[in-house]
């Protein structure tokens, strides 16, 4: 099973590269393949079991958009045909229409989803997150320069915290098996039930997660703490 990691040289913030690494630790059959900005992506010629991209610098967003633009139609085809994607943190914005920041920076993105991101560069949004995915609780963190606006099918239903923006309870983007979310943590380490579901989607339902007992004990503690109404959600 091949997991393609897009642009690890710039998309490596907030521990997000531990997401694919946790999959590999949990399932030895998984091969991680990093695609650099100047490489031809694996997905251009093959159909990896999972295409992953994590949190990225603002310059990295520009470089990633440049690198992916020649493959935009291929990405659309893979999304429509139900290939598995997991996009975490602000990498979500790369797949939307555009980004505009109050510093004057603007970026046209891939336009695969009708979302518009707005960044406030001196007013970082930091929050806890509690949501649901099917019957699973999802917990994690958000640490972002802004939010996204637009009508999309969400990945998670928000229980506490904000979704794609302050007025939106849906969090992330889902289309077929394309999944993108602002939630970091790393997402897969903080949410072992979701990780098991993802491995099953990749055809590795039999795998036991690395240190599954420790991860589950921590998950239960975090879910309980984050659901507690006395726990603050947005840092200020």
């Amino acid at each position, binding site marked *: 099973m091949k997991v393609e990691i897009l642009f690890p*040289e*710039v998309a*490596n*913030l*907030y*521990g*997000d*590269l*531990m997401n694919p690494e*946790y999959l590999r*630790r949990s399932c030895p059959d998984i091969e991680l393949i990093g695609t*650099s*900005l*100047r490489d031809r992506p694996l997905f251009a010629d093959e159909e990896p079991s999972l295409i992953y991209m994590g949190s990225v*610098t*603002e*310059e990295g967003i520009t*470089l990633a958009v440049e690198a992916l633009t020649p493959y935009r139609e291929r990405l659309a085809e893979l999304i429509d045909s139900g290939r598995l994607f997991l996009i975490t943190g602000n990498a979500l914005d790369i797949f939307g229409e555009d980004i505009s920041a109050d510093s004057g920076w603007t970026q046209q993105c891939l336009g695969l989803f009708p979302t518009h991101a707005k960044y406030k*560069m*001196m007013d*970082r949004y*930091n929050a*806890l997150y509690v949501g649901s995915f099917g019957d699973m609780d999802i917990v994690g*963190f958000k*640490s972002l*320069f802004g939010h996204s606006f637009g009508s999309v099918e969400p990945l998670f239903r928000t229980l506490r915290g904000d979704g794609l923006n302050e007025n939106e309870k849906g969090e992330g983007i889902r289309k077929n098996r394309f999944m993108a979310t602002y939630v*970091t*943590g*790393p997402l897969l*380490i*903080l949410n072992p039930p979701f990780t098991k579901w993802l491995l099953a989607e990749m055809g590795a339902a039999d795998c036991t997660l*690395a*240190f599954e007992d*420790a*991860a589950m*004990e*921590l998950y239960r*503690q*975090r879910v309980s*703490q*984050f659901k507690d109404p006395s*726990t*603050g*959600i947005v*840092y200020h």
Partner: protein
Amino acid sequence: MNKLRYLIAFITAKLSVIALRLTGHPGTNLPGQLALRICPDFLGRIPKPARIIAVTGTNGKTTLTNLLCDLLEQTGEKVVSNRYGSNLASGIVTALLSGCPLPGRQSATVGVIEIDERSAPRVFPRMTPQLLVITNLFRDSIMRNAHPAYIADLLSRYIPASVKLIVNADDLISCRVAPQCEREYFGIGPMPGDVIECVNLINDMRICPVCHGTLRYDYRRYHHIGRAVCTSCGFSSPDCDYAGSEVDFDKMTMRISDKGGSAVYTLLNDSVFNCYNLLCAVAVMRSLGFDHGQISELASRCSIVATRHESIKAGDITLVMQMAKEKNALACSRAFDYVAGREGEKEIVLMMNCLGDVKHWSENVSWLYDCDFEFLARPDIRCIVATGARALDYRLRLLLAGVEEEKIICVEDEMEAVSRLPFVKGDQVYLFYGTDSLVFAQKVRSRIEELAREAAEK
């Protein structure tokens, strides 16, 4: 009206200093807060010393600020500094106030001012230092500082063009900040232990800043610190104006050379970070016109502040208080690497929990997965006590780092947790604590000393 506002702010702030002193409070921040509340332009209006040396960057700011103060005070300069206070605008104002007997007079001859790197938009329009040292730029709190390229961009936009920079040639992020400014570079040549490929999780300079091609490192100290060349366009790390070489941790010496000569300096301690701090201090002093002989003699009388690294004999063990800023993966990685390199058996206590976040929210733990806990997976580490609100997070991270499960002791209550240390004769016990737990760490320290003495008596 603005002048009146400044005068009221000055008097109020000065009165608050007296009130704080009478009530036994340190008062390193509040006077500045009051002054800025009354007169938002106070920092721009308060008289400043003839020379201001500012220090910013991710790591080493406080150590370097202390070192520069110690060096300059020995030369007879009257120094104002926020060395004991906040590095935000309020702390800077408080420091400058301490040198002002009257609203229009500054008695200090030199200001050594530590500036929080994210405060550039608030500070630089109102205070222009003659020299600004940027120690390095690494990842810090993701909630506040996001990533180093963001901080580099902020600094570049706000540092006035008249400021002369002293920057780290071995750090391709910070040394390219504010291209509008004249600069001198410091750096340390190849050292034993340097590598080519990055062994750390954080590596924030993987591509050429000019053409985005692949960077090839001639040598790498840690993370992105080292000397690199772009394989596509030929861009390379700059040459050093102040060069460290012949670093010898046995003799505790380093040679520092520049176009005016060279001298062998005594190291502050055996961490690479402090080699950079010493080099940086020497670069500043050389830039101010002191000669190597003078600086070397002055530096030999300096030491680093005990809050960062302190070694205490307790019973049959040596307790090492090791500051490792919470939510700062880089600082913790460096501290872990340093401890891993020490000889002898070790017992570790991890309590770099963010106590502030615990009260109201829950700490964003993603930094744990940028941090090299892998350095702690060593046979000479006897046990690791994970404690505080994030004890279970530490446990999972340690397991993923390759630490054997039987070595991990996980107890939430810190005082109870340290009672689980084995205190084996001859061991070094390392207590890792953050800035948020400075005061609490002293209580835990006392408890460890007490337990160590009891263990020795048995």
